[in-house]
C-alpha cells in the first residue's frame, strides 16, 4: 500500500480562542482539521478540570490538522502569534497518509 508523507499539526489551545486558530488554519489553506475537547490538564503549575469549572473559561481543546508541509509552515507563523497572547502548545510531526490529493 503506497503511503505519502505529510505533516500533522497538533495545537493544544484554549476553547475560547480555538476559533481564532481554526480561522488561521483555514486561511493558510489547510484542507481540514478536527477539534477534540480536552477534559483536564496541567500547565504552569496549575491544574484545570472541565467538571469543576462552571464558567468553562479554562477549558482547552486539541486541534489536529494534517496537510502539506508548506501550508503548515504558513499557518505556524500566525499560530505562534496567537500563542503569544493565549495559552497553548503547538507541535508538528511526520505522518504518512493514503490519499495525498485530499490534502
Amino acid at each position, binding site marked *: 500500500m503506497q503511503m505519502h508523507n505529510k505533516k500533522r499539526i497538533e495545537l493544544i489551545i484554549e476553547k475560547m480562542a480555538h476559533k481564532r486558530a481554526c480561522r488561521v488554519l483555514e486561511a493558510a489553506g489547510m484542507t481540514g482539521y478536527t477539534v477534540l475537547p480536552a477534559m483536564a490538564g496541567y500547565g504552569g503549575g496549575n491544574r484545570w478540570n472541565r467538571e469543576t469549572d462552571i*464558567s468553562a473559561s479554562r477549558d482547552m481543546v486539541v486541534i489536529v490538522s494534517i496537510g502539506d508541509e508548506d501550508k503548515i509552515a504558513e499557518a505556524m507563523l500566525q499560530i505562534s502569534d496567537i500563542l503569544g497572547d493565549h495559552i497553548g502548545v503547538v507541535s508538528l510531526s511526520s505522518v504518512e497518509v493514503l490519499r495525498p490529493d485530499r490534502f
Partner: protein
Amino acid sequence: MDVALSTLLSPIILFFALGMGAALLRSQMSVPEAFAKGLAIYLMMAIGLKGGVEMSKNPLTLDVILMLLAGVVLSFALPLIAYIFLRVTSKLSQTDAAATAAHYGSISIVTFVAATEAVKLSGLDSSGHMVAVAALMETPAIITALILAHRGQKREKPVAGSEQGELVREVALNASIVVLVGALIIGWIAGEEGTAQVSPFFVDLFQGVLCLFLLDIGLSAGRGLRQGWRQLSVATVGFGIYMPLVSAILASGIGFALGASAGDVALLITLAASASYIAVPAAMRLALPKANPSVYLTLSLGVTFPFNVTIGIPIYIFLATLVTG
C-alpha cells in the same frame, strides 16, 4: 434577624454549603457539566418569563426606564472604583486588576434570584422589570474594564484570527443575555394566560432546580478556592468582601434618588454588589487573554458569591428598607 436566619437555613443555601463542603473535603463528586449548563438555561428561562409576565401587567413608566438606566450606569462605573481599589491595595497587574474589576461591575444571576426570594420572605414586593435591569447590567462593565486594561498602552495590532465583531457578538449575545432577554420578551407577549400551561415547569419547579444548581455552584466554588487560594493575597480576598459593600452603598444612594420601592432597591443593591462568574470570565479569555483566571474566578465565585448569599443579602435588604424608609 429573622430573614437572615431563614435565608441561611433555606435548602437552597444549605445545598450550596453542602457542595462547598464536599469540594473542600476533596470529594470527587461532580454534577456533569452538560447537566449543570442545561439547568442554568432552565433557570434563566424561568427568571425571564416570570419577569416578562410581571411586566405585562403594568405599563412601561418613566420610573422603570430610569431604573434600567441606573443599572447601566452602575455597571459602567463600578469597575472603575474596583480597579482603583485593586491597584492601590493589591499587587495585581494592570491587566489582572482590570479583568477582576469587570467581574464586579457585572452581575451574578443566582445571587439575584436568592435576593428575590429573600425579599419576598421579608414581606417586600419587587417588580418584574428588575430582570431586565439584571440583563442590562451584564455587559457595560466589560467595556470599562477593556478601557482600563489598555490605558496608557500603545494600540496593539489585533491577535491573529480575531474577527471583526467577534468580542461584541460573544459578549452581547452570550447565552444568559439571549435567554434572559428572550424569555422576558416572550413572557411579556404571552402574558399570564399564555404562559399558564408552562408554569408547572417554569414556576413550580424553580426552587427545587435551584437547589440542584446551587449544589453544583457550591462544588465549583469550593474547588476554585482549594485550587486558587494560593494565588490570592490578603488584600485581594479583602477586596472580595468590601467591594460588594462599597457597591451596595453606591446603589443605595441611587435607589434613594430614584425613589423606587424597597424591594426593587434591595435587588438593585444586590445586583451592584454581586460579581459575575460565568459570562465575564468567558469574555475575559477572549478579550484579555493575559489576565490570570485563577485570580478573578476564585475571588468572585469563591469569596464574593458565598459572602453575598449568606451575609450580604440580609444587609442589602436592610440597607434598602433604610433608604426607602
